[in-house]
């Protein structure tokens, strides 16, 4: 039985969904959760339900906002004191930035953004996509412990942990140390919706959107079904959408439950970034567009007529 720490981030009274996905997969191990800041009691019970035995709120000066150095120093101190075998985190903006830094402080290795893993006894064996998902490989870690792993959101799915009980909540004081790269300001994004990498449903537009203003029809559909809007590289390079919305090999790799591709032909680099979506719907005027080879449901037709009809049908189906 390995001793494992799962690092999580707080969002109001909740922890990120990917944290619960990781916990569900670690049933049978001695698993503790830590976050920087005060973990609310609702979140503690949620974490316990998925198998956390202990939940630690890490507190210290200069940790109100994320800083790569401050968080890394704080987490390093806490991990050293707890002698963990593994440290997991979601492959979120913070997780992807922070974990390699902490791993290096232990001279330890890290597996990035695995989409699946098993613990064979105390040995971690993961699967991760490479080349933006054009192929997959088995990944294992060697060298000094603890070993570090980030897990892609939405990849494992939520599984209740049968050994779950109550979690002991505790506080630990941590030291942020010297911070040389300090946040001065946070500029909010255009969208308050879930990030593409965490979204359960994505509606994406391609070159056929013709102009930025036309993304309005995708926004309307997205608001009906609770989706985040994405774009292809062609649409981003044409200036229809910002790079933060780009799905594909030089944008974001996504794995939603439902991906609706509108006017996207399906370049190999785009398919690589979205092919692990559970269900794919494609709307395109070209019946031979490569996107149809990956689509579960392909609709040959003009997105400007199909999308509004589909939005109405979604409204009817969902009673909105």
């Amino acid at each position, binding site marked *: 039985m390995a001793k494992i720490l799962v690092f999580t981030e707080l969002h109001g009274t909740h922890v990120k969904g990917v944290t619960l996905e990781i916990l569900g997969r670690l049933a049978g191990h001695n698993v503790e959760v830590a976050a920087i800041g005060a973990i609310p009691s609702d979140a503690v019970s949620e974490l316990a339900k998925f198998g956390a035995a202990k939940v630690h709120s890490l507190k210290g000066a200069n940790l109100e906002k*994320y800083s790569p150095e401050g968080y890394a120093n704080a987490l390093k101190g806490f991990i050293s004191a707890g002698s963990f075998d593994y440290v997991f985190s979601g492959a*979120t*903006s913070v997780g992807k930035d922070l974990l*390699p830094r902490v*791993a*290096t402080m232990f001279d330890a*290795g890290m597996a*990035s*953004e695995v989409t699946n893993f098993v613990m064979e006894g105390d040995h971690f064996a993961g699967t991760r*996509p*490479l*080349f*933006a998902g*054009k*192929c*997959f490989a088995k*990944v*294992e*870690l*060697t*060298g000094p412990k603890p070993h570090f792993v980030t897990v892609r959101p939405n990849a494992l799915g939520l599984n209740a942990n049968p050994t779950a009980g109550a979690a002991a909540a505790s506080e630990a004081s941590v030291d942020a140390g010297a911070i*040389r*790269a*300090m*946040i*001065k300001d*946070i*500029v909010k994004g*255009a969208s308050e*919706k879930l*990030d593409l*990498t965490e979204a359960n449903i994505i509606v994406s537009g391609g070159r056929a959107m013709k102009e930025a203003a036309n993304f309005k029809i995708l926004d309307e559909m997205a608001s009906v079904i609770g989706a985040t809007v994405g774009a292809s590289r062609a649409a981003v390079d044409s200036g229809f959408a*910002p*790079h*933060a*919305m780009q799905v594909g*090999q*030089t944008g974001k*790799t996504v794995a939603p439950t*439902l991906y609706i591709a509108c006017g996207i032909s399906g370049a*190999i680099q785009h398919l690589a970034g979205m092919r*692990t979506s559970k*269900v*794919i*719907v494609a709307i395109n*005027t070209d019946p031979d567009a490569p996107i*149809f080879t*990956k689509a*579960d*449901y*392909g*609709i*040959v*037709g003009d997105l400007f*007529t*199909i999308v509004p009809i*589909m939005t109405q*049908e*979604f409204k009817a*189906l969902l009673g909105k």
Partner: protein
Amino acid sequence: MNIFVCVKQVPDTETKIVPTADATFIETSSIKWIMNPYDEFAVEQALLVQAANAGSTVTVVRVGSSKDTEALRTAMAMGADDAFLVEAQDNLDSYMIAKALKGAIAKSGKTPDLILTGKQAIDDDCLQVPQILATMLNMPSVSVVVGYEGSATDVTVKREIEGGALEVYGVKLPALIACNKGINTPRYASLPGIMKAKKKPLTTLSLADVGVSDADKRVKYSSFQLPPEKPPGKKFDATDAGKMNGVVKEVVGLLRTEAKVL
């Protein structure tokens, strides 16, 4: 200022990836190699900082196979002054690459004031090397940066996080900044630039020269395989105005009854 840029050479984004017969890596014999697209932003940013700070030099460092030196030659054709190549296989893990980059920077004899990298390489997509290298060098660093301004001693950078929100950081140099698309528009190498690049110094080092050995291996990869092919889906013709509504209604219905995603 001593400016360093770390670049990687990766298969072109249109490459069809094929695992080797023994599944230990991918077939590399017929691949078209390019500079990692995010590294182009790092090279461009280095040249912009150099132009703003007279007397600065831009040194490019790469770890990888010497079969093709496309990435380093491109960087020098864009305007970088010199280059170091640490000869190694193309599938080293992030820890080994970062340690080799650190060793090569030390071998250059210059103390870095600024290190620029791409935010991630589009081959293994680990997004680790910039943070590992900064930690090894005990340097502050910010990753996924889409905005950069500042002087030779202090910079303000914007880091992109979830939902396109930005964290604005003040950083004292020396520092490492990992660039994302949007930070600048990389220039194309001019023909005179390409000719000049051929005469610029390219120093080749071995992994042993930079103090890296098999003992530094942290990540083991095996069983490279293609993703499972999906069975063919259902395709509907909605080009005819009369059928459109029916088709869309049917697909939306199937999303609930068959795919069970709504």
